[in-house]
């Protein structure tokens, strides 16, 4: 599959000066065809169109978007809410930031479409606190939209009211987890809720709530204006459409790339990103943000950037945050970097995550500074298994999966940190 010369769904306006303004957005086809098509059909019709497009959630889990919307119960007598997850804080991921900074109106149009489909009149944008320019741009865009009658009591003169509010996060990674995000909007401590009930049934303020990622919603204007079939032109059968990949690490041209799903990871690194820096060899790639299992250079050869291929390679597509590492990287050091992050960001609610993240981090610290043993590797593996699938949210899994995959795929790096004397430091303690 060839890279499209022109990026076609999400990043069309990225190169245009003042692309974040309403004037440029409208000049380039915004707020017209997609919305008129939306309002000309029933909400169920819109859901059907999105289902047909095969659009999958771009926040990380890849759940079918139209399917998620259809879980909203009807006639509950309660309002329905849409929460836009703009709390992009997965290490290595910076795609939503681009959309918020360069094309905030595209997101607003997507919000209007989603709200109409799920019969919602209030949307909250939960934006990461550190996103300053993004916040200013989306804030300004909402003001412009209200002034033009695109938001408010009558959206585009239609008998449909929609208010959009922005809620700025306070720097917690866990608030990107959808139920923690709801807690945070409700002014509680950012801690995930027990499921079930799922937010589609009992969500924000106890009402049915849909939480969608910025990238997911930004794809809606295209899907509605050009149709599901046009969207499905890209991608694979099970992973249709395009996706943003934020590439960082030891490559010539880091940045955000819009690619059709199913694109070759090797090609992305070697062609789009201009290959490795300083002529170094590729060692490892995190394909979907720091929480997913790591890939070796050998895996990269065959890996395609779609949900199915990622799983077949023992990893996940996640948020599309691609982190490329060269041969100089010590994987123990890299993993320690990540575990520090998860130990710091664990909300502290569930026992396995609260205690396990810190424990793993301390073991890796000791391995790096005092040296470890083979027992430590077994311990790390066992702790990771004890953490996985036993907690309210998946933050524990998000740390356990990298730990397991780093140990499995780069055992030599860990052996390099074994103590030469061979005596276990634990023997002294006990």
């Amino acid at each position, binding site marked *: 599959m060839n890279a499209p010369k022109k990026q076609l769904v999400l990043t069309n306006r990225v190169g245009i000066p003042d692309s974040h303004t309403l004037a440029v957005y409208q000049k380039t086809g915004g707020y017209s065809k997609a919305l008129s098509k939306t309002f000309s059909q029933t909400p169920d019709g819109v859901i059907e169109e999105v289902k047909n497009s095969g659009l999958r959630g771009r926040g990380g889990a890849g759940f079918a978007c139209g399917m998620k919307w259809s879980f909203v119960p009807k006639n509950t007598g309660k309002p329905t809410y849409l929460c836009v997850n703009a709390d992009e804080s997965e290490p290595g991921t910076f795609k939503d930031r681009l959309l918020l900074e360069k094309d905030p109106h595209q997101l607003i149009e997507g919000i209007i479409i989603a709200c109409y489909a799920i019969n919602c009149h209030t949307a909250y944008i939960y934006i990461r606190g550190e996103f300053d320019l993004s916040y200013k741009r989306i804030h300004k865009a909402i003001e412009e939209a209200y002034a033009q009658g695109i938001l408010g009591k009558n959206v585009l003169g239609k008998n449909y009211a929609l208010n959009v509010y922005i809620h700025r996060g306070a720097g917690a990674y866990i608030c990107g987890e959808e139920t923690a995000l709801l807690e945070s909007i409700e002014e509680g401590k950012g801690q995930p809720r027990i499921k079930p009930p799922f937010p589609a049934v009992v969500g924000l303020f106890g009402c049915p709530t849909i939480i969608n990622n910025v990238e997911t919603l930004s794809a809606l204007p295209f899907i509605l204006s050009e149709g599901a079939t046009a969207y499905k032109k890209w991608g694979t059968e099970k992973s249709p459409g395009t996706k943003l990949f934020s590439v960082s690490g030891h490559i010539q041209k880091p940045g955000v790339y819009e690619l059709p799903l199913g694109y070759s990871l090797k090609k992305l690194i070697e062609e789009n990103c201009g290959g490795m820096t300083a002529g170094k060899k590729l060692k490892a790639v995190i394909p979907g943000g720091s929480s997913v299992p790591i890939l070796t250079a050998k895996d990269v050869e065959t890996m395609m950037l779609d949900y199915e291929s990622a799983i077949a390679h023992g990893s996940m597509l996640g948020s599309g945050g691609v982190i490329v590492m060269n041969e100089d990287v010590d994987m123990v050091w890299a993993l320690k970097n990540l575990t520090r992050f998860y130990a710091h960001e664990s909300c502290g609610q569930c026992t*396995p995550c*609260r*205690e396990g993240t810190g424990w793993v981090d301390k073991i890796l610290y000791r391995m790096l500074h005092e040296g470890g043993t083979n027992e430590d590797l077994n311990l790390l593996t066992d702790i990771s298994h004890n953490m996985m699938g036993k907690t309210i949210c998946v933050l524990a899994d998000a740390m356990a999966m990298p730990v397991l995959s780093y140990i499995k795929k780069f055992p030599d790096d860990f052996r390099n940190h074994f103590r030469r004397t061979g005596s276990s430091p*634990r023997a002294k303690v*006990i």
Partner: protein
Amino acid sequence: MILEITSGEQEVLPGPRLFNMAKIKLKIDDREIEAEAGTTVLEAAKAVGIEIPHYCYHPGLSIDGNCRMCLVEIEKIPKPVISCHTRVAEGMVVKTQTENVKKMRNSVMEFLLINHPLDCPTCDQAGECRLQDYYMQYDRIASRFAEEKVHKNKMVDLGAGVMLDQERCIACSRCVRFCNEVSKTGELVLANRGDHVTITTFPGKKLSNPYAGNVVDICPVGALTSNEFRFKKRVWFLSKTESVCTGCSRGCAIEIHFEASKVYRLIPRFNPQVNSYWMCDEGRHGFHFVNENRILKPTKNGVEISASMAISYLAGEIKNLSPASLGIVAHATLSNEVLSILKELGTSLGTQVFFSRNEPHNPLSDHFLMTKDKNPNQMGINHMGFKPLSELTQGQSLIVINGLSKKDGELVTQKKAKVIALFSANESELSKNCSLVFPIPTFAEQNGHFTNGDGLVQAFKAAFKPRGESKEIGVYLHMLLAQLEDKKPRVAFGI
């Protein structure tokens, strides 16, 4: 008036009670059981005697699901689920004893203990600590933790007599939920994240609600301890007796924890009709009169004498008085049994029976458990027709049982009435001035019943024998009536 007798012994299952709910059939560990719809797996298991270990679950609080100790396996569900939050469903097959479940429990125990200090020898919770209990029951594996533990503040005075050791806390959030849901004061919060999470109050604020003592009871570990109780007694030395709180007319079901005729603490006992799982701090701390300031021997004009001597003095005095010039003053803190004996005595002697009562002191009454009436048995007094002391005639001679309130004392002086004998457990101004004083036991030393403000009759049991030479009222009166030969009792008192 509906009178019900409750022994407080019934096994009442926690959880939502839904009427007319269909029974659901499920299997737990190969046992076919029935449970009401809406019950959780943990509760359904408990009802048939299958104990699923848990820390954060408490039947009186909302479900938080954070400790992960109650993870079980359910057929057709790929991941293990927490049994405290999972509702029973028809045909469900629950497994609580598989190798996988055991391994999960081991791992949760290991996680909980890695940062938990090895304080047990100096920890007040030792002996009633869930970490100790579950370690012995489900874990018993040596720690693999070789790193430095997280250190936190070990002595935080939260207020209201509650001391926090942050290192011992397992962040189960029971105390936080108690303050949010039961006392509705919300002083406590879990601050910080990860393994640095700690219980704390908001800056500049203290734990200050009249029910704060309950957080010590519900803390499954030694994180929250009571300033009043800590370091006083190892819990394994304590015996327990079911009793009823004497602090007010609510009559909360309690347990007396004691050793060698000394009460160390009162804790609430579950009674869904009265106090659920809770009690107020005023009641909780209201046991010191059992231990301190006691009258232990009968006295005449301050000189210790034998009980039979004292009784014959009293009989002599009574013989010289006409029935109309004698009066008996009962107290609204006495049991129904004592009150009925006094009533019978009044009838057989032909004298009037009055009552005195603890005066209400504000503002300690509220929407929840505390009432304005600070007497445990005012209702018993009312039912048996004791007269208020204001109906006293000038110059009457009085036999007072369990003291007089300040107001009633003034009334007695004003009416020039004379207290000829006092039966009391504790020393007071009155006991110092009264010529004949008889020691009687407190509620902790006798069996009896109180009728609470809602008309519910509840039994309390003797924790230990009456202290010193104190005797139950019935014993004294039996001796007295034997001496008043011409005034034989119409009934034999059941002593």
